[in-house]
């Protein structure tokens, strides 16, 4: 093949590659360094992945892309407002109940602590004297002080994210494709098909993963809510919501979700029968999750070894706390997919290293 233009072609490819990498690094820096940007983007991605099938469905009826994006946002906004109106009195009632029963819980907790202290001192009193009450009191004072200090920051974070995330999701759904095409125009010709193929794979895997995980969490939360409500356990809705959110963290999440219920049960000095029923509720929710939802929905989408998953969760929690634990699996999956694709592409090119 002719080699006259080779130098020019290589030069153009390098310039384009540098421009694309610079754009990606800048975008990543903004997302990681600007406050609230990461959480807003993660939630925006989740919203856009959830709504994209609905947007496509509306487009199929003949609506323009703009209208097909606006209608789901209006619909979801209305449903959320209605849900908040319906759920707020229930949550408010449960919170008011917690407030009114705080003295009982304090009494229960004190009793639990003193009993535990008594048992421990009976066992190991000769070697060490336990003073759990003082330790717990100090911890509680520190904890409540930090909560009150952090409330303004948390509230401002919450409002910023809840404003930015839907806004980003709206533009992702409306202009995402166009922006991606513009970025692809800058990708050098020799990497273009690889980039397109990779984006398609990541997009379909991530979309499936997000939808599957949210469905899984909603089912687990629903089972816990209904189960606890049917045995007459207090704050079933709040505990169901907690179980749904923590279930997003693989392996460890279900245990974290059960902790408030267990504490509540011990503090309330719940009977052995109720305690067994509570355990059955959580067990049933996890059996449904492990036997039905994970094999049928989640495992088919992300093919990662359990050890990789646990390592990813630990690294995620070290870097970004709870958010890191939740997003560690999709990020690991993207890294694996990108690594494998680039490796295969490079191997393919090693055979004939020409322009």
């Amino acid at each position: 093949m002719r080699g006259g233009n080779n130098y020019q072609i290589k030069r153009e490819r390098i310039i384009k590659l540098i421009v694309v990498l610079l754009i990606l690094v800048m975008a990543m820096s903004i997302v990681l360094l600007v406050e609230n940007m990461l959480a807003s983007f993660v939630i925006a991605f989740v919203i856009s992945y959830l709504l994209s099938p609905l947007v496509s469905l509306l487009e199929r009826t003949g609506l323009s892309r703009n209208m097909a994006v606006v209608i789901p946002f209006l619909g979801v906004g209305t449903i959320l407002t209605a849900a908040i109106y319906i759920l707020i009195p229930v949550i408010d009632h449960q919170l008011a109940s917690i407030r009114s029963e705080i003295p009982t819980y304090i009494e229960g907790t004190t009793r639990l602590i003193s009993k535990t202290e008594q048992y421990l001192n009976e066992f190991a009193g000769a070697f060490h004297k336990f003073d759990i009450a003082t330790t717990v009191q100090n911890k509680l004072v520190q904890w409540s002080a930090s909560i009150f200090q952090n409330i303004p920051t948390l509230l401002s974070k919450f409002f910023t994210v809840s404003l930015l995330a839907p806004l980003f999701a709206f533009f992702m759904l409306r202009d995402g494709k166009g922006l991606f095409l513009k970025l692809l125009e800058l990708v050098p010709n020799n990497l273009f098909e690889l980039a397109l193929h990779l984006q398609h794979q990541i997009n379909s895997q991530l979309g499936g993963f997000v939808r599957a995980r949210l469905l899984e969490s909603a089912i687990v939360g629903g089972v816990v809510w209904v189960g606890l409500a049917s045995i007459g356990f207090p704050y079933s809705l709040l505990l169901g919501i907690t179980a749904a959110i923590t279930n997003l963290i693989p392996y460890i999440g279900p245990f974290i979700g059960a902790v408030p219920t267990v504490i509540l049960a011990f503090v309330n000095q719940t009977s052995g029968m109720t305690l067994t029923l509570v355990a059955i509720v959580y067990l049933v929710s996890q059996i449904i999750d492990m036997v039905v939802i994970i094999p049928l929905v989640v495992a088919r989408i992300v093919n990662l070894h359990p050890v990789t998953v646990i390592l990813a969760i630990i690294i995620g929690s070290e870097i970004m706390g709870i958010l890191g634990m939740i997003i560690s699996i999709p990020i690991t999956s993207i890294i694996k997919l990108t690594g494998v694709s680039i490796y295969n592409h490079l191997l393919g090119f090693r055979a004939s290293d020409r322009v």
Partner: protein
Amino acid sequence: MINYIWEFIFNKKTASGSIQTALKNSYLFSQLNSRELRFVEKIVHIRQYRASEIVFRQGEIGVGMYIIAKGSIDIFQERGENSSEGEEEQVHITRLSEGTFFGELSLVEENGCRSATACAQEDSTLIGFFKPDLLEVLERNPVIGVKITFKLAEILGQRLRATTEKVSQLRSHIRSNTAPREMSAQ
């Protein structure tokens, strides 16, 4: 770099017109009306290639097809290593000109490899239409998707018929060549 930005900004309008014409003239999109062509135009990828630049190589995993909007493309087949120079021997198969397309088999194959190497013979503009794009069209506008898929099936059917004819021609050619030899051997 400056040239690239210059071309990118100022050639946009003319490019858009010629892209629609190129799509309309392509057999795959020939059944689409102007509204449907505008929809497809927002999905396809416009790529510029310098003379002698490789579009794709034989053996690479193919993602989709290209329509030649401007310029011409040479198709080569790599035939193992040339022992004297240690380079792969290339056999020129054909030269494709404006309006034609190539690589369409990748639209329906799962991780199918390119059967030949495509290289720009002169500075060329190609319209890329890939499997993710076809899936997107089918999901967002099934009417357009079905029209394109039907045409694609037609193209592949024609290719299959041509290949079958060629195979039977070759077979009869081989038979007619081997029969007299067998007769003379007896």
